[in-house]
């Protein structure tokens, strides 16, 4: 096993924590944004299906069959 200097050790530890915590946080933020967008589209679709107004049918993230 290689022993580095304390400063190098600390740099590796911070890099590791940054990758994991940063990765999870980035995924969570992106996911929240995607959910909010999809919820808004679902509301628009419901409004379009329910009433005779001019609401546009939503274009969804997933390709329709």
């Amino acid at each position, binding site marked *: 096993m290689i022993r580095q200097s304390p400063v190098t050790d600390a740099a590796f*530890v911070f890099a590791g924590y940054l990758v*994991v915590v940063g990765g999870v946080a980035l995924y*969570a933020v992106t996911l929240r944004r995607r*959910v909010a967008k*999809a919820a808004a589209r679902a509301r628009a679709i419901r409004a379009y299906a329910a009433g005779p107004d001019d609401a546009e049918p939503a274009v969804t993230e997933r390709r329709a069959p």
Partner: protein
Amino acid sequence: MMVRQTIASRSGRLVAAGVALVVASGLVLVPADASQGDVQRLMYVHVPAAWVGYLAFFVVFACSAGYLWRRDPRLDRLAAASAEVGVMFTGLAIASGSIWGKATWGQWWDWDPRLTTTAVMLLAYIAYLLLRQTVSEQRRRGRVAAAFGLIAFLNVPLVHFSVLWWRGLHQAPTVLRPGDPTIDHVLLAQLLASVAAFSLAYAWLVWQRTRLEGLLDTAVTRD
């Protein structure tokens, strides 16, 4: 709808606070390891990320079996969500393990059985997501993904036992092993707290991802 958003938002903050707490204690409060020094602190993010990967892929397996049996679309959505979150955590486990490897072994990657089988497991679940992406019809997507979700799980025990079946650089299990864990009690407590916090983060992410999957399915059905 608004109530659900509020609950999601508040529980999300609570989970984030929990993760922040274990991260802070892993970085500062817990004493350094006698042999590896401070570098060993990477264990408190690397092991939980890997554990959550296993947990996520077990959920994919269980939901796949359940879907083939009951044909409940919620199980299919849960499997899809769990696979995506599991791929993310396994990727992070590999990345943090690589950093730990550079610090202790002197190299970013080694063709060690644990590392290699983990990479293969990651590829199998990326292929699972790819398969879902390419089938647009909901029921067919659910069926083919469930069948693949069942066989893909075979990779998980292979990863776990690879360190016992072959010799490599990666250490053998210290907690999930027969007999007492070979780790100091304070470090073990920190590790278990990290595992719990990451598992909660997984549950929250899967909840949100399942919701997204449901919203997308609803939108496609009604379009």
